[in-house]
């Protein structure tokens, strides 16, 4: 379970690069020399985080856009955020 708080904001790590390509998102982790591909929902979440929305706001947007319940959206968003933090793709801001 993630320890991220719902009011937390995130940004793309200064050494990572992110682009949305149609229905997926690509992170280039420059320091590790690795690429990380996220699916459409993942790309949407990252775009929302980049637009300075908090985790809570992102979760609300997911429920509206993808017609899923809040619990499901919270689980998905939190686990993606935790994974991206671990990979060094995003940082807390």
């Amino acid at each position, binding site marked *: 379970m993630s320890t991220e708080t719902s009011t937390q904001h995130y940004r793309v790590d*200064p050494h990572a*690069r*992110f682009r949305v*390509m*149609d229905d997926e998102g*690509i992170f*280039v982790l*420059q320091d590790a*020399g690795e690429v990380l*591909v996220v699916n459409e929902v993942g790309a949407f979440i990252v775009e929302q985080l980049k637009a300075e929305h908090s985790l809570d706001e992102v979760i609300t947007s997911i429920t509206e856009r993808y017609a899923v319940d809040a619990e499901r959206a919270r689980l998905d968003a939190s686990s993606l955020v935790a994974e991206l933090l671990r990979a060094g793709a995003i940082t807390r801001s």
Partner: protein
Amino acid sequence: MSYSDTVKRTWNDNRLMSVLLELTYACNLDCTFCYNDLSLGGKRLSLAQYRELLHDLASLGVLNLSLTGGEPLAHPHFFEIAGHARDLGFVIRLKTNGHAIKEAVARRIRDEVDPFLVEVSIHGATADTHDRQTRVPGSFTRLLANIRTMNSIGLRVKANSVLTRWNEHEVEELLAVCDDLDVALQIDPEVKPRDNGDRSTLAVEASLEGQARYRRALEAHSKRDVGVTKDPSPAAARRTNMAGTDKHCGAGSNNIAIDPYGSVLPCVQWRVSIGNLHERRVTEIWAGSGMLREVRETTKAARRKLEGLGDAGLLSNFCPGAAHTYSGDPLAIYPPAAQRMAASGRTRVRLTVV
């Protein structure tokens, strides 16, 4: 979906992913074999035009941006352009001769550009060989010192070299020099004609023995690193890479190049203009160039042609851009591709070589 699937999709869907900018043809070295066409003229793109271009490329979702030349650092606004590219979130590769990158410049590159990779060119394992190519005495010693500096401040450096008649006798030492510097080395075995078709650069092409020596040296070097893994045959590997697309390459489909005078090209090697930034923005060119459509069809035709030649075609390392530079015909087999086909030992097709 894996990254390679994503890249293939960009080929199929004509999704622009990588752009190479030749910022200037000015250079602080003077390599004998340099493919740049120094007779080319025109109105250079202004800093304002570069800013607009970078914004347009970011809006198209472009991920990779290579800055080259000539010597990119010789552009008077290099740091403004590269810094702006960094701010727009591109993955930047800097292709440079490394000559100007002493410590202060290296630090500016790291802090203001934050490139994914700095690719430097090395032309031999010794000062005699390298400086003979660059025609600037001391350039080898300076390059090695600058690579060490870049490494020490945390820039990621890779070395590129072109196999020539002048360095083919020391290819093993070249690999050792780069190992010693702790930088990966990529060797291009093919000297290209100049961009205007002038073949005088080919005077330094590696000999057949030199090519064979290079292949042996690479094999010995990779065995040392890899150990026990058994690679598929090169043709099988190429087939795997080509699965899922009907194009030979991504020229004009997921990548373009732009010269200092605003000409947009399908790829750095394919010197045919698909539009000019002094007349139209890159977004318009990308959306509606007739020449671009023709280029994309040509990459499909190249694929069909090479597949028709079997393994030999797959192993020819054919490049429609190089073919175009040799003869004006992007589908004509040109001498180095023919040589590789012959070396693969499987061609029974009679070829007309330009």
